[in-house]
């Protein structure tokens, strides 16, 4: 029997880490969820703290489309505008 939920790891950086007050947290999602759905859940959970903060999403350390399907144990990251150099 397939599990009905999966657990992914969410990594937070820069302004998003600052606003959320954490480096990382686990997120439980229905099996078959997409990266975009994970993003919506993260925004809900942030309860307005991420309002207006831009970010891109990465899946397992690669920039990814919102349509990408998640698997248990995946690493999801919120990537605000980068500032290296």
């Amino acid at each position, binding site marked *: 029997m397939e599990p009905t939920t999966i657990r992914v790891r969410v990594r937070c950086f820069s302004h998003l880490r600052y606003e959320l007050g954490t480096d990382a947290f686990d997120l439980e999602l229905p099996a078959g969820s997409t990266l975009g759905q994970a993003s919506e859940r993260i925004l809900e959970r942030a309860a307005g703290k991420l309002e207006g*903060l831009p970010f891109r999403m990465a899946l397992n350390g690669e*920039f990814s489309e919102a349509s990408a399907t998640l698997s248990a144990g995946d690493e999801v990251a919120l990537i605000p505008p980068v500032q290296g*150099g």
Partner: protein
Amino acid sequence: MIRVAVLDGPLPVFEERPAPGGCGSEIVFHGRVRDTEKQRPIAALFYEHYEGMAQRELQRLAEQTAERFALLDLICLHRVGDVPVGESSVRVVLRSKHRAEGIEALAWFVRELKRRVPIWKWGVTPTGERFPSTHCEGCAAAESEHHSHPPG
């Protein structure tokens, strides 16, 4: 030769050496930490990064740049952690046949680095307090992709 690294600690000294026979241009770029950030005096910048992804994106970008501009060598070292004012946070070495492609490659490489390599900076005050930077060169480089900025 393409080589990139993300290092926590001072960059090793750059050693000059004779270049390969086809190399007519060598450019060494140092991005240095200025003494103010958002008009506040600072002692250092703290560079945060997404370990693993930062290295991979930097490697991919270096390979793309070398191919696009026909470079002989591209070496990029980027520091993370605290980088004191006056020191280099990044060094890029580009060797090419002529200087024109080396200069273009430098401009492109650094602009892309500031758009896609997951590294972020924080101001560090003289008393050691960190404050977020809102500076975002990526916005200017990619106007199609709108960024709103959090208040400072």
